[in-house]
């Protein structure tokens, strides 16, 4: 059971807004500065991917508690082209835009849980979670 807030991603500045929201929510959950930076950076990566590859989409952030454990879940969703080869994308250094190609594998390492749902021509949905320890 959680409280969910969201930011629509249309412009580069919406990435900043999503990040800001993420940092605030992470703080409220009780994460320290290092985890705040990890969560904020992960949001930045996913929001920028939406902006760059899907054009528009949404970042949703939810704080939750489960059996006395607290955490934060972020859902990045878009109705863009989808990711044709998700295995390649999860390897370090793969980019179709001349970028570093470290975003997706990096986000997976920054967070505790990482789930991708993507379908060609339908869109991409990425759900990431970090637990408070």
């Amino acid at each position, binding site marked *: 059971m959680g409280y969910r807030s969201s930011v629509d991603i249309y412009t580069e500045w919406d990435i900043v807004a999503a990040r800001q929201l993420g940092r605030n929510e992470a703080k409220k959950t009780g994460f320290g500065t290092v985890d705040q*930076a*990890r969560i904020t*950076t992960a949001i*930045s990566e996913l929001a920028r991917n939406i902006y760059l590859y899907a054009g528009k989409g949404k970042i949703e952030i939810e704080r939750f508690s489960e059996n006395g454990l607290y955490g934060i879940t972020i859902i990045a969703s878009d109705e863009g082209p989808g990711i044709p080869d998700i295995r390649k994308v999860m390897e*370090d250094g793969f980019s179709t835009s001349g*970028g*570093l190609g*470290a*975003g997706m594998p*990096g986000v997976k390492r920054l967070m505790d849980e990482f789930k991708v749902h993507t379908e060609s021509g339908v869109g991409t949905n990425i759900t990431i979670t970090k637990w408070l320890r």
Partner: protein
Amino acid sequence: MNKRMTEGINQNIDVIIERWEISMKEEKGKNFFHFMPSHLIEKTSREFAALMTSNIAEIDVVTPEKLNDFTEKVVRFGWSIKFVNKAIDNFSRIVFRLLEEKDVINQSNLRSFVTIFENWISSLRENIIEAYSMEWERTVSLQKIALQELSASLIPVFEKISVMPLVGTIDTERAKLIMENLLEGVVKQRAEVVLLDITGVPVVDTMVAHHIIQAADAVRLVGATCMLVGIRPEIAQTIVTLGINLKDFKTTSTLQRGMQEALRMTNRIIVEAE
């Protein structure tokens, strides 16, 4: 007709304001006015009512100047456009009802009063929307300028050593500017070591890192060395976890350390005077 309307309003202005305030407070609970201290609510309400009615009094001769005057003042109240819209709606509705109660408006003249109200409100609304959008455009363009002024400049600190302090979010446009200023400055200042200080950058994601790496490479191409300084511990950890390779250039946690290193690289040291 307008004269009777104005009279009707003026005689009952206190009732109108009171009803209007109640209606506005009901809109969104008490939150609608919550950002205003109560004495200001009272004062602003009266001012708003006066503005609204002055506008009707001149309904036949509403000059653009009069309208602009009105909108300018309303915009200055600092209300949101949604609130202003509601305020105008409620005000006109309450006035209409009251004039009906006082039999100023009745079956026989209803039609012409509806027209008067429509003209009154629609011109107000159009002007309000225009005034607000102009205000927004102005704010946005001012902020763009303010941001550009914040943007990176390369500062020569010692002979052969320059510093570029980066503050704030780095977007694509700023990244371009950083690169330009960096290269231009290095050549002009004959810098041999450049310290790129990211203490003030809130988030270093792969895009920012990419821009920094490209900038460092470009600096190398014009014959100087780029150092990345001001890497906070949490940023250092995040960069490592992302798997970004910064091994190709020097990094330090603080500007101070970077400066010592830069002096060493240019064969100089700082000594205390006797």
